[in-house]
């Protein structure tokens, strides 16, 4: 392109941004645009097109959630108790506040308030770090308790009772093996609870002769099925690992987007420190802000759908 080295919209060392002298246009105005206004609007349009693809990407996962929740609500009503509402709410507040500091940062860039811009971008970045730290704590808890996806899932009922009464109490229904970690059921019996022994709180099992030989009732009125030790939420339905698969896929993909956003914010922060943004040119701050707001938007929907199920 041009021999003067001002081929990119960024201000370079020999072409301080905003100062004329490179054949009549500022360093950050690319050659294929006629005016700063056109460049700015094109940048915005491009970012909105990208955000549309992001919405479609997450839309696929929301579709999986919708289908599974519509047709197997019992899995969601059981499994959501293992998510910590308080941590989820904290993350929501953190992201919303970081969206505010990001929007304010764009304002500061537009006003040429460099120190404020740097401070606000730093706060936004700190919000991202906080979000990921809380996420890490949540994921660790799940990993410890085996609340994971697919075959990695370990039933919490089984863990509470220990390994002793796997097959003995379940009678002839064929559901000898507890439904741990496998999508392939061992028997056609629906929603067989883990334990037939009464008194779920006690760690000891009654001797086989005293246990009922009748297969336990399927998920039904609470009076029939034994209390589950996981807080009395009824018997564990089949395929709970699907909920955690959806949970990790959605929050995991969202977390990756938060990390990408943090990298973009760090980049814009570095450029702000070099004084490359001001009332003439603040487009990268604006566009990174749009991306960050979308990440917040997605979380605004993820939070009630995953954490606030009733």
């Amino acid at each position, binding site marked *: 392109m041009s021999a003067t080295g001002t081929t990119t919209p960024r201000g370079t060392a020999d072409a301080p941004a905003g100062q004329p002298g490179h054949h009549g246009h500022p360093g950050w105005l690319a050659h294929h645009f006629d005016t*700063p206004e056109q460049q700015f609007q094109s940048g*915005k349009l491009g970012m909105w097109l990208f955000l*549309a693809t992001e919405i479609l990407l997450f839309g696929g996962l929301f579709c999986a959630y919708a289908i599974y929740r519509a*047709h197997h609500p019992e899995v969601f009503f059981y499994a959501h108790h293992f998510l910590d509402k308080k941590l989820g709410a904290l993350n929501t507040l953190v992201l919303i506040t970081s969206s505010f500091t990001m929007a304010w940062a764009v*304002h500061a860039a537009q*006003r040429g308030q460099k120190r404020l811009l740097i401070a606000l971008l730093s706060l936004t970045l700190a919000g991202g770090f906080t979000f990921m730290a809380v996420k890490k704590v949540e994921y660790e808890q799940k990993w410890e308790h085996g609340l994971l996806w697919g075959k990695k899932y370990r039933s919490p009922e089984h863990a509470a009772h220990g390994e002793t009464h796997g097959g003995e109490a379940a009678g002839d229904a064929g559901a000898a093996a507890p439904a741990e970690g496998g999508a392939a059921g061992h028997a056609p019996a629906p929603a067989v609870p883990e334990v037939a022994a009464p008194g779920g709180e006690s760690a000891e099992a009654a001797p086989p002769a005293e246990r009922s030989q009748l297969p336990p009732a399927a998920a039904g009125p609470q009076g029939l099925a034994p209390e589950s030790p996981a807080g009395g939420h009824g018997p564990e339905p089949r395929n709970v690992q699907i909920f955690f698969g959806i949970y990790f896929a959605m929050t995991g993909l969202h977390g990756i987007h938060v990390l990408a956003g943090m990298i973009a914010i760090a980049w814009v922060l570095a450029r702000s420190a070099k004084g490359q*943004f001001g009332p003439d040119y603040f487009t990268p701050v*604006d566009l990174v802000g749009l991306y960050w707001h979308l990440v917040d*938007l997605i979380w605004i929907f993820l939070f*009630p759908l995953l954490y606030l199920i009733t």
Partner: protein
Amino acid sequence: MADRRAQGEHGSAAAHPQVGHVVPVRLLAAVLGALLLLTVVTVGATYVDLGRLNLWVALAIATVKASIVALFFMHLRWDRPFNAVIFISSITLVALFVGFALMDTGQYQPDLIPGYAPAIAPPVP
């Protein structure tokens, strides 16, 4: 040098951009307040038992929150309308996607036999 554009800080009036529109900080703060309040309402609503409506109340509040983020933080209120067209279109497409998938899967739910999956687990004789 490169700080020529930081001169706005030192002047009595902050500089104004030549492109785009500046959102007043007060408005941004008001939106933040509304978002925080709505978050509290969302969490509080889970303690009220509305049965099946709980899900829709939560989604409705989330939609309001998303709208004010889009309109004010993301600047759609003052932008060229085509940006909003792109945003709404993508959401519409997702709605179609989810809607048709639910309709389709819903069609055959009554025919399913719980626990019967011969392809992965042969039926117990």
